[in-house]
């Protein structure tokens, strides 16, 4: 970005290798009286793959939406690469930052949605090249080549000129993944990306995400009900309930030996009785 203030450059450059890429400080989100997130503190380091689990309504998806600036927190502060995302503290008061700040920072962040949200008026290729061409302003030839590679990676090289409506759900979600990756994000947010898919095609989408997790160092924050996938891909699992993190562990420990009673009953419901504590 040409107009980035110097202090921000310093913040980004000066960050230690294991400094948080995403940091939540006392973040709250409420709609009227309904508290969705409450005094949330956590951070995600570079290259982390963090899975958020928990019952529906526990605020997992809201966290992704806050990072993507689809919604604003009502309390607290969120930092990306050490920079405040939407609000910062000035003289003890919470102040909203200029909108330019979030616009600049969110270019580092990509998101894949449960409902794909491909643009139905564009072809598959147009969906993928839209942002690299018009947001990043990269040269057309370069963008097209990269889009071709991405389509190949998600196994849809032959669908470049198809419209999303002619694709299956699994194919659409693979295009959505390619579209997010085309922006070369530092952080990838995955919001229940397989929940809208038929069971037999969940695997093809998860397989691609596994490959991406293996081949890149993109920081991933994901909400999923696919516990095996969470186990395979992530290095940390956060269990949410009532807008708070109630347990945090490595996936192996979380799934085989949860400590919190609420986590146990949740995993029992999701995985089935026999899978917990027996391994």
């Amino acid at each position, binding site marked *: 970005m040409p107009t980035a203030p110097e202090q921000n450059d310093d913040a980004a450059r000066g960050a230690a290798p294991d400094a948080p890429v995403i940091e939540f400080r006392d973040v709250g989100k409420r709609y009227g009286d309904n508290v969705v997130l409450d005094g949330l503190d956590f951070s995600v380091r570079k290259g982390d793959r963090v899975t958020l689990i928990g019952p529906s309504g526990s605020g997992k998806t809201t966290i992704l939406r806050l990072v*993507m*600036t*689809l919604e604003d927190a009502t309390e607290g502060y969120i930092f990306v690469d050490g920079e405040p995302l939407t609000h910062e503290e000035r003289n003890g008061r919470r102040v909203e930052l200029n909108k330019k700040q979030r*616009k600049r920072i*969110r*270019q580092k*962040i*990509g*998101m894949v*949605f449960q*409902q794909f*949200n*491909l*643009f*139905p*008026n*564009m072809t598959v290729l147009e969906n993928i090249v*839209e*942002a690299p061409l*018009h*947001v990043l302003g990269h040269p057309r030839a370069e963008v097209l080549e990269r889009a071709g590679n991405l389509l190949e990676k998600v196994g849809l090289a032959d669908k470049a000129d198809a419209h999303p*409506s*002619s694709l299956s759900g699994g194919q659409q979600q693979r295009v959505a993944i390619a*579209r*997010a990756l085309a*922006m070369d994000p530092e952080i990838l947010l995955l919001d229940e990306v397989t929940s809208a898919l038929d069971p037999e095609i969940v695997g093809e989408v998860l397989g691609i995400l596994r490959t991406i997790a293996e081949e890149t160092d993109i920081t991933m924050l994901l909400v999923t009900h696919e516990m095996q996938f969470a186990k395979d891909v992530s290095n940390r699992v956060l269990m949410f309930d009532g807008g708070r993190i109630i347990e945090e562990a490595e996936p192996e420990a979380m799934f085989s030996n949860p400590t919190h009673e609420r986590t146990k009953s949740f995993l029992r419901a999701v995985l089935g009785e026999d899978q917990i504590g027996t391994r």
Partner: protein
Amino acid sequence: MTPLPAALDWDWESAFESLPSLLSAFLQVTLLVTVLSTALAAVLGLVIAMTLRLAPRPVAGVVRWIAHFIRMTPIVVQLLFAYYAFLELEPLTIGVLVFGIHYSTYMSEVYRAGIDSVPAGQWEATTALSMSTRRTWTAVIIPQALRATVPALGNYAVSMFKDTPFLLVIGVVEMVNAGLIYGGNNFRYIEPITLVGVIFLLASYPTSLLISRLEKRLAYRT
């Protein structure tokens, strides 16, 4: 047997004789006004819809009030008002402007509904991709909103087409007026007026069929 009422005393010769002047009025005035006014209304309607959505609140409020006012008064009154207020303008120009502006207020509502029909997920995707406001509107929202609105806009164009006879109150020789002129000169009214009705029917019916076919073709398969 009672004699047929005079009104049904149909004379083919008068019918054929009146046809050329009717067709010429149809092509040169009725169709011209419909096409130009539809174009004006379609563009102005979008401008109004975007203003209501994007302009600062006071500006949007004024535009909303004006649009409401225009919708709530009869087009004949608006034609007469504009005719006497702008005597230096050609009646045909007045006609095109009044029809265009009047219908733009209806079309703006269609656009508004079309814009509202674009799912929230589309807006969220444009944010997630850091798209500019301009690109969001021109590449994503408007193209999708237009698909939803084309049929309704087409129906308003047909309505406008059928409203063009109101132009006779400001002396424009559109098709009905041409029929009345023929009638006045030849003392035969029923033939030209019947033909006017037939021409309207022949023009609007296929157009409405076309619109409903378009509606089916434009719908996104999901």
